[in-house]
């Protein structure tokens, strides 16, 4: 059976490119090196939820149709619309996004990608403050202090810790994996002994001992790689960490500013900040200053909570301050596999990373005004094209209400909540499985996506579908101009 090596995984922003797939009779039958999400995608993508024929809604019901018919209907919707929204883009390749931007310009609409509801505030902040960053390779080989803030890599980027940070074996830093295993074993043994002692001597039913050790353990001051997690819940990642700081919800900003004060050797005149005793924070600040190469990864825990972009301002400023004392970098944990690519393509084509409005004929960017959720909440759009995304499952209800009221075109390989509400649905080939292309990893490194199997018969790629819609829209608009002139 042929084995395809070095496949890039099209799931999360970690973009692991060491996946090995075994192909049998045009199907992926075995996945090696992948995480649970990777396996689920490669082995389950072709299930019963797959759409195989274009669908058009007629009298409230979906009717199967030809690609040509669907392209015509989609082009009609877009050409007739005054202010359409083109949304998604983060789970397709850069090549499709490039065509999408041309389409948005042609129809005078708003083109926005999913970063608007994940790391949009981070981008705004980076534009304000700047970002000291590097590639994940640098972090793998050099970082001796790894901090995740408002991010649960174990759940959202399952191989991030193993491939790029604390548990990876770098050239200059060893993996902390063995230490973690020893810690787990020791805690299991301790729990067993405690439970046995309690049963034998106290004749009590064993209860679960409190697991959280609130003060920083001595191990946090040792040499070598250390993992610190700051979050509102004790996530799975937090259980692996050398130290976990539990911050109260919506109070990250205070904690970030407290760290800024501490690393400038200022005294805090309070006992605790965001529910954490200041003396513990002082010790962590000390660890930050004493590291050789530190990195702060931040997730949507910061961008979605109260303060939003101001949280990121504070985080970026904290890293700037830390760079006065040692070497520190910062990186957002990007979610979808090519959300960074969607930002990058949008930036080089229009000058702006997301929320780009073409209604005046030139690109305009003003998140809060030209961002898709706001356009929908103000009920301004009159049609939408959604590609490789599921806003009905991801937008607040009020925004979805307006989205589904107007004509809706969906391009997606799977049936999802948005496709169920659409007027035109195009089945598409899975990018990274049935279509090749380029994607950008969270550290802005472009990686090639492989085509390992053929798409089902008659199913086109995102790029091809968009090209056909674009060419049909151009034809219709030209025809209309001729009619108006006559």
């Amino acid at each position, binding site marked *: 059976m042929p084995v395809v090596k070095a496949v890039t995984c099209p*799931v999360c922003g970690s973009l692991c490119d060491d996946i090995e797939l075994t192909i049998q009779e045009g199907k992926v039958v075995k996945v090696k090196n992948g995480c649970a*999400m990777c396996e689920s995608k490669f082995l389950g993508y072709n299930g019963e939820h797959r759409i195989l024929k274009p669908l058009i809604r007629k009298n409230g019901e979906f009717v199967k149709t030809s690609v040509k018919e669907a392209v015509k209907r989609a082009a009609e919707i877009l050409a007739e619309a005054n202010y359409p929204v083109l949304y998604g883009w983060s789970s397709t390749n850069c090549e499709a996004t490039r065509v999408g931007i041309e389409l948005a310009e042609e129809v005078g609409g708003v083109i926005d990608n999913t970063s608007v509801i994940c790391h949009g505030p981070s981008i705004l902040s980076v534009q304000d403050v700047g970002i000291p960053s590097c590639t994940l390779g640098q972090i793998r080989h050099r970082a001796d202090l790894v901090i995740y803030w408002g991010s649960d890599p174990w759940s959202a980027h399952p191989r991030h810790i193993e491939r790029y940070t604390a548990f990876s074996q770098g050239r200059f830093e060893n993996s902390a994996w063995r230490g973690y295993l020893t810690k787990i074993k020791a805690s299991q043994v301790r729990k067993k002994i405690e439970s046995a002692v309690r049963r034998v001597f106290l004749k009590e039913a064993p209860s679960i001992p409190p697991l959280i050790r609130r003060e920083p353990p001595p191990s946090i001051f040792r040499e070598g790689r250390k993992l610190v997690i700051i979050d509102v819940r004790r996530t*799975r990642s937090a259980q692996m960490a050398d130290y976990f700081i539990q911050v109260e919800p*919506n109070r990250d900003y205070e904690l970030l500013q407290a760290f800024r004060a501490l690393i400038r050797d200022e005294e805090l005149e309070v006992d605790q900040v965001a529910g954490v005793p200041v003396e513990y924070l002082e010790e962590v600040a000390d660890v930050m200053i004493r590291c050789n190469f530190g990195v702060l990864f931040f997730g*949507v825990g910061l*961008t979605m909570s*109260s303060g939003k972009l101001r949280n990121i301002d504070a985080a970026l400023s904290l890293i700037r301050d830390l760079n006065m004392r040692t070497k520190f970098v910062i990186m957002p944990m990007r979610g979808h596999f090519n959300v960074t690519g969607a930002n990058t393509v949008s930036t080089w084509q229009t000058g702006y990373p997301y929320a780009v409005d073409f209604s005046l004929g030139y690109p305009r960017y003003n998140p809060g005004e030209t961002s898709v959720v706001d356009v929908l909440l103000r009920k301004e759009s009159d049609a939408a094209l959604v590609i490789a995304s599921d806003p009905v499952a991801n937008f607040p209800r009020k925004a979805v209400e307006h989205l589904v009221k107007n004509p809706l075109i969906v391009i997606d390989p*799977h*049936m999802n909540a948005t496709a169920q509400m659409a007027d035109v649905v195009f089945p598409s080939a899975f990018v990274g499985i049935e279509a090749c292309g380029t994607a950008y990893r969270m550290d802005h490194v472009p990686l090639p996506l492989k085509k390992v199997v053929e798409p089902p018969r008659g199913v086109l790629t995102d790029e091809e579908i968009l090209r056909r819609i674009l060419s049909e829209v151009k034809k219709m608009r030209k025809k209309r101009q001729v009619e108006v002139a006559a």
Partner: protein
Amino acid sequence: MVTYQKLKVTLLTGRTIEQGVGKEKGKTSQEYVDSVTVCFIDPEDLRKLGIKEKTNVQVSTEHGSVVVKALKSIRGPHSGIIYIPYGPWANVIVNPETHSIGMPSLKGIPAEIEPAPNKPLLSLRALLNQQFGKD
């Protein structure tokens, strides 16, 4: 009629590995639906509500109300905080306010939770129909 106690809590939404696996399998798959119709509650809050795991609960915010299944959180203690994975069910109750920067407020929302053992968990289709009058 039994009256249940209501509890004021802070709602967080976010990713779980089960939701991640479910979404890659297919957004209409049972795995996905099962992974996003749950609400992780601290054991102490479960005790306060007087319910056991897997009882349906109604979570309400000023933006909407939805029925999900209560699960005991092993990520505690986080008394006063409930966690619902991202998905169509969570979206009914999250805060659409973007504070003029495009980003809705999806974490840290004041909410109220009460046991609803007699109210059904809606299917995706029924939920979309109920919320948007379209399926």
